[in-house]
């Protein structure tokens, strides 16, 4: 079985985002970018399934600007076998929306003969959380979202999902789309020897047009604003005064 793992290049989780002066979005020029952390978990899970002998090949795909090949190199250094870069944007500030991504992924999955797609449950930049579900719908596959545990046997996947108030275990027939939650695994460290090996792994470059998809956005961003700064606090002399204040603002 081949596992396809989509990975997204996003602003690094350690970076404090700044909004562009014109309010059109977050400033991404000269900002450290990394692989979306949920996608790292997806790559890790796919590699583990390969190590267990469940999968033969792990293919990573990234859709976006040409610089996303850096993100693919990270996945290759972790242990993915090969990578596909689908160039769908020229500018780092140009977003490709979930539906276009899902359409391209559906085409890639079909082209590559993938038996399973493992994707991050959402990207930490736009927080749409939609691609995995749209992809399953487009492919007509089953879906198991927010996975915190995956077991694969006999052409089926048993997936534990994190839902409100507890865990739910479901069983889906393969091929399927699984999206990863935070607690599924801890992604491995990409060592220097493996980074060097990854240099020789194949990275194929395609365009959105190769898959007949128009990546033009359908949404219009009206404004992006930074959260309001924290207002200055006050010092209270006693617990009684604190309780009084809390009552005053109606929280106790």
């Amino acid at each position: 079985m081949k596992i396809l793992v989509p990975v997204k290049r996003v602003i690094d989780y350690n970076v404090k985002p700044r909004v562009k002066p014109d309010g059109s979005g977050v400033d991404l020029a000269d900002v450290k970018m990394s692989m979306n952390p949920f996608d790292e978990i997806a790559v890790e899970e796919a590699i583990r399934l390969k190590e267990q002998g469940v999968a033969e090949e792990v293919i990573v795909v990234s859709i976006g600007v040409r610089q996303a090949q850096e993100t693919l190199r990270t996945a290759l250094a972790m242990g993915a076998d090969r990578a596909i870069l689908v160039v769908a944007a020229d500018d780092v500030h140009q977003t490709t929306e979930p539906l276009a991504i899902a359409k391209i992924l559906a085409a890639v999955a079909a082209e590559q003969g993938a038996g399973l797609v493992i994707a991050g449950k959402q990207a930490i930049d736009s927080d749409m959380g939609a691609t995995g579900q749209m992809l399953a719908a487009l492919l007509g596959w089953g879906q198991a979202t927010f996975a915190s545990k995956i077991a694969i046997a006999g052409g089926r996947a048993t997936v534990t999902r994190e839902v409100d108030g507890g865990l739910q275990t479901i069983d889906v027939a393969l091929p399927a789309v699984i999206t990863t939650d935070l607690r599924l695994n801890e992604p491995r460290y990409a060592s220097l020897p493996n980074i060097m090996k990854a240099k020789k792994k194949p990275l194929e470059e395609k365009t959105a047009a190769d898959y007949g998809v128009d990546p033009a956005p359908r949404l219009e961003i009206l404004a992006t604003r930074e959260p309001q700064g924290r207002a200055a606090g006050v010092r209270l002399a006693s617990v009684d005064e604190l309780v009084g204040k809390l009552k005053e603002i109606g929280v106790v």
Partner: protein
Amino acid sequence: MSNDPLLQPFQLKHLMLRNRIMITSHEPAYPEDGMPKDRYRAYHVERAKAGVALTMTAGSASVSRDSPPVFNNILAWKDEVVGWMKKLTDECHDHGTAVMIQLTHLGRRTRWDKADWLPVVSPSHEREAAHRSFPKKMEDWDIQRIIGDYVDAAERMKAAGLDGLELQAYGHLMDQFWSPLTNDLDGPYGGDLDNRLRFTFDILRGIRERCGEDFLLGVRYTGDEDLPGGFDAKDGIAISQKLKDSGLVDFLNVVRGHIDTDAGLTDVIPVQGMRNAPHLEFAGQIKKATDFPTFHAAKIPDVPTARHAIAAGLIDMVGMTRAHMADPHLVRKIIEKREDDIRPCVGANYCLDRIYQGGLAFCLHNAATGREETMPQIIPAADARKRITIVGAGPAGMEAARVAAERGHAVTVFEAADQPGGQIRLTALQERRREMISIIAWRQAMCEKHGVTFNFNTFADDADVLATNPDEVIIATGGLPHTEVLSAGDDLVCSAWDILSGDVKPGQNVLIFDDAGDHAALQAADAIASTGAKVEIVTPDRAFSPEVMAMNLVPYMRSLQKLDTTFTVTWRLLSVVRDGNQLRATLGSDYGGVTRDRLVDQVVVNHGTRPLDELYFDLKPRSSNLGEVDYEALTSGRLQDVRANPEGTFRLFRIGDAVAARNTHAAIYDALRLVKDL
């Protein structure tokens, strides 16, 4: 006026200290001929300039001939010390910093085979484990002689214009009198607590009489030996009260524990991976019990903890000593509300571990500390802006990028991994070494501030470098573990890095061959042994892990001994062959004539790194200097000016492990020394 608790002045008797941050006594081992000369003075003045309130100079300056220095301490028994101390004090005073000194007699905590070959003295015959001397039990004339020496030394410091002094009483002669474990004397200097304190009070009284009321006196002492049979916290409170009640001292400077073993010393002065501020609450108890000016230091590396110590009223003056080695301008940055810019002390303890081996104290990641005469703590701007391209974002590359950017150059960094850090990132994967990553995080923050362009996930080749059209190229690509050291079976072993990175899963019965003697072997041993596996570390050296050094070894031993790790010295791994589903490792000895076999399922070899230098040699023919470094220019702070190749369009340099396997300090010093003049 600031409302920051750390920036409030403190009135110590007649002396107004300008804020609550002090440098506690420590010996960086910079004296020349036992005197605090230019290097020593430059070190203290740098910190005075930046606003520290009080600097307690010397790490226990010696008052007597029979207290020969164990790590190049100041010789306070020589009259010539007055001139040197006066110069240092005057300059610090010019910058508003109060100056005191710590005086001591080491007692049994030194060696007889130094200086004048006089016998080591102590109030008993008990030997100290760390320095191995069997002391002479003191006679009455020893006691009177040394009391007189203390008073004479104090007078020298008064003559040099110091504001005061403190007496050392943790592990040295003074508290060897205090402790029932090391005082066998009969009265008047042995027996009950008052008798055991008599030596101290005789000295304090003598100094007070000689130096007067306006010379500040204190004691830096352990308030709890934390040893069976020693004095405990209750006795410590009683001693504190007696010191106060004597009217002879003006402040208490509290530590907790004992320093006669490496492990004890490391609990008093904790290192990386150990708790922060472990004795702060205890110091607070002493202050509460005595209501007397109380100073304290012990792994308070960060400003918020220091601020808490003062704001909560636990102590009056907070010692940030190693923190000041890492960043001499710590106080200025607090004043200027730039706390995020403070170069953090990561507790690597390179400073202290080096002095106990007879070296100078250097900060693992501030190569300018202790080299203030030649290395800048504030990077000067360059005359002309150049394009500098750096390959590799480990400690060498990141320091080069920081220094180049602070000089105002346009800096581009290529890094193969998705994060900066190189070997630091690998070492910091382990919980106890996590603080190491601050070495990189601080540089990354400084680089961001100065607009360095980073290209991660880029295994740069010559075309990538040349595309940046550089004026200077710095290769800081580090190295890869070299494990091919066997006569047979090189293909059957893995490296310590393979274990640390997780690329190779730990075996069940593992032999680690370590002749690099650095952290990697012990970290690998820890990682393997903590899975429940059996581990034996084999080294051809006389002692294991020589590069890890005494205090850094303590946390490892506390883990590895519990996990039953075996340490085998003076044996060398010769070969590994397959034996069924196991590996047969053959050990030999440099002493010759013997071999031994071990049957194991995994062999790890730790033999340092070999440079990743392909890119350097690809670029070399196209560089104007052909990679050559002018060592005369480098070491005297002049511009590099080798022009071996007129066709070259850029200069090429190599730093850190990309040259040869060394350590973090070497990598950072390479970078600072070179780039400050580019």
